């Protein structure tokens, strides 16, 4: 309780400090370069000066935080990836050479590519199908809410939920995991799904697909509703059936949105960590880059060089999407 009081107290203090900063810097700026009550050239010159300085006062705290927490670490991580475990001695590309010779790293890269192939595709697919189907039924909104719900659940919580689904009991005893119960009901033999090399990756991916489908559905549903009514009516008049309308009229019009959903989920997949840590901690050949990086960060007292090198690999994989995003944003913002 005391701790919560402390937290809320700090929060109020923090907000007040921010408010004070903005108010005080603004007040000081207006005192140093007054524009009211002065005449002519002096006033307009002061106005120009304040207008040039004020944006930077407004942005300073945010830019400072971004610089410390995101910009500086990118450069520092690249630097550390070229140094030894303590970050002292320069080793050149040594960490990267080690990495590509390391079986566990190659396993992680392989698994990450599996995740990249499967999760964005299936999440987007299910999201699109559900968005299209729920638009046609009266209880569509309830269905959407329920499918959207896993978005709010933490990866770790979802891991527990699904570990329970995959729970395994020896053959002959009563299965309490629903998957094995269904398998045995159909006469199959129960399996310890998450220890089954290669295939267990897919059982972990199910969790992320389960969480992300709601995201894809919400965005694609809005895009589908944004399709102009006239194009659909024209297609109906031309005698197109439901499937033709969907694939030939609707899908092409929302390609852009599909791409955004796909890339957003791709970024998330590259960083997937919690699910693997909670389900297998990389055992049974399920290791992924983010978990391997976390592992090296603390393994044997922490190897910052190797950890940073793995982080740099994740970053390099993200860069193409980053560039694509920036180009889109620039085009859209245009002159504004």
């Amino acid at each position, binding site marked *: 309780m005391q*701790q919560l009081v*402390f937290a*809320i107290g*700090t*929060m109020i203090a923090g*907000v007040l400090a*921010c*408010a004070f900063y903005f108010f005080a810097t*603004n007040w000081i700026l207006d005192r140093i370069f007054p524009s009211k009550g002065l005449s002519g050239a002096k006033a307009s010159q002061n106005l120009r000066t304040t207008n040039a300085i*004020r*944006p930077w006062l*407004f*942005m300073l*705290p*945010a*830019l400072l935080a971004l610089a410390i*927490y*995101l910009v500086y670490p990118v450069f*520092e*991580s690249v630097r*550390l990836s070229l140094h030894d475990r303590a970050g002292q001695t320069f080793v050149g590309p040594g960490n990267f050479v080690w990495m590509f010779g390391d079986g566990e790293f190659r396993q992680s890269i392989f698994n990450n590519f599996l995740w990249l192939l499967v999760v964005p595709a299936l999440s987007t697919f299910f999201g699109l*199908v559900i968005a299209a*189907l729920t638009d046609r039924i009266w209880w569509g909104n309830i269905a959407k*809410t329920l*499918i959207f*719900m896993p978005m*709010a*659940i*933490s*990866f*770790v*919580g979802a891991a527990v*939920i699904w570990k*329970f*689904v995959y729970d395994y009991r020896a053959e002959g005893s009563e*299965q*309490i995991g*629903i998957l094995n119960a269904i398998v045995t009901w159909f006469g199959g033999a129960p399996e310890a799904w998450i220890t089954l090399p290669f295939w267990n990756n897919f059982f972990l991916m199910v969790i992320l697909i389960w969480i992300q489908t709601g*995201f894809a559905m919400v*965005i694609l549903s809005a*895009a589908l509703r944004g399709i102009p009514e006239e194009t659909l*009516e024209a297609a*109906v008049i031309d005698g197109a059936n439901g499937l033709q309308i969907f694939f030939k009229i609707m899908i092409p019009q*929302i390609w852009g949105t599909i791409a*955004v*959903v796909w890339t957003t989920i791709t*970024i998330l997949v590259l*960083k997937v*960590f919690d699910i693997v840590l*909670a389900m297998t901690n990389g055992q049974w050949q399920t290791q992924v880059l983010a978990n391997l990086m*976390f592992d090296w*960060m603390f393994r044997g007292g922490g190897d910052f060089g190797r950890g940073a090198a*793995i*982080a740099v690999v*994740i970053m390099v994989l993200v860069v193409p999407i*980053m560039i694509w*995003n920036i180009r*889109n*944003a*620039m085009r859209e913002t245009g002159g504004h």
Partner: protein
Amino acid sequence: MPGATRSPLTFVVHLSVLLLVALWTLPTAGLLISSLRDKDQLAVSGWWTALSTSTQNVVFRAPSPETQTERDGKFVLTGNFLEGQQGEVSAFGFNSRDPAAFEPGQTAELNDGERLTVQADGSFEIVSDTRMEGTRGQRIFYTAAVPPRFTLDNYREVLSAEGIGQSFINSLTVAIPATIIPILVAAFCAYALAWMKFPGRAILIAVIVGLLVVPLQMSLIPLLKLYNGVGAFFGVPAKTYVGIWLAHMGFGLPLAIYLLRNYMAGLPKEIMESARVDGASDFDIFIKIILPLSFPALASFAIFQFLWTWNDLLVAIVFLGTGNEELVLTGRLVNLLGSRGGNWEILTASAFITIIVPLIVFFALQRYLVRGLLAGSVKGG
């Protein structure tokens, strides 16, 4: 949808949506139902059978012979397996190799001349001609059909004994300030990027869009080093709540600025121009006009940030530590998965406590969440 409203396919549509909804909700439902079940029932039967009578095979330890009473020259121990509960015993035995050797009402001859009788209602009686020796009670195996039983015991246990209560408070301590503090900082920055003219604005916007996708992993090691350095320099601990609040603020700012800037840029220009004509400064315009008008966007971001900080595991274990006192709920849950892997009554109840707060936020404020998602990603298509 033209032409599709009354087609024969409608039935198929209803059915497939129903199936998909079931697929998406049943795992969570199973968790919730299981967390409310009696732990003995949970361990032996699936949650989908929670409402039906379950058959349990149980080992029962009779009371110690010290509690025996003398009756008609014989020594007697009595008791009931199903103390205070409903149920029906269908078989019993005293040997682990044949735990269901006898039916209720029968009398079993124990090895040392004692006789065990068990009734269907669970009451049992051990009778001996001589005084029973020893301090350990007789082991009795029984099979009983037990009606479904729901209880909050699992929750009581995890909240006190498993440290979930402390972690709940830790999670709140992390999430509330980490949600509120960035809002004002981001809002000022977003206003400057949306409505103030200065050189380099386009580049800054591009940088923020770029920072949106920088993986957290890039920041972990440099910041850990930085925190350790700052901690050593000032002689304070490196892992503190202040440290994690600031980290969450830094990681949340790109999304906050991006969302708010998009929203503010969409506000009508005329409002600001007429205010400026009336002599209002940028500061006044922001505080009195833009900030109140931006409430929906602020709410969207606050929900995102709260869900993200509450559900986060990585930042918490790196910057707050994994000690018993400071573990947040997600970290505690991972630990329990390791240490109590088979105890589903512990895991289900703990997991439900960790997901209940975000679920409440989700159902209460879903509108803002959807709006924020749309503002944050549809752009750029």
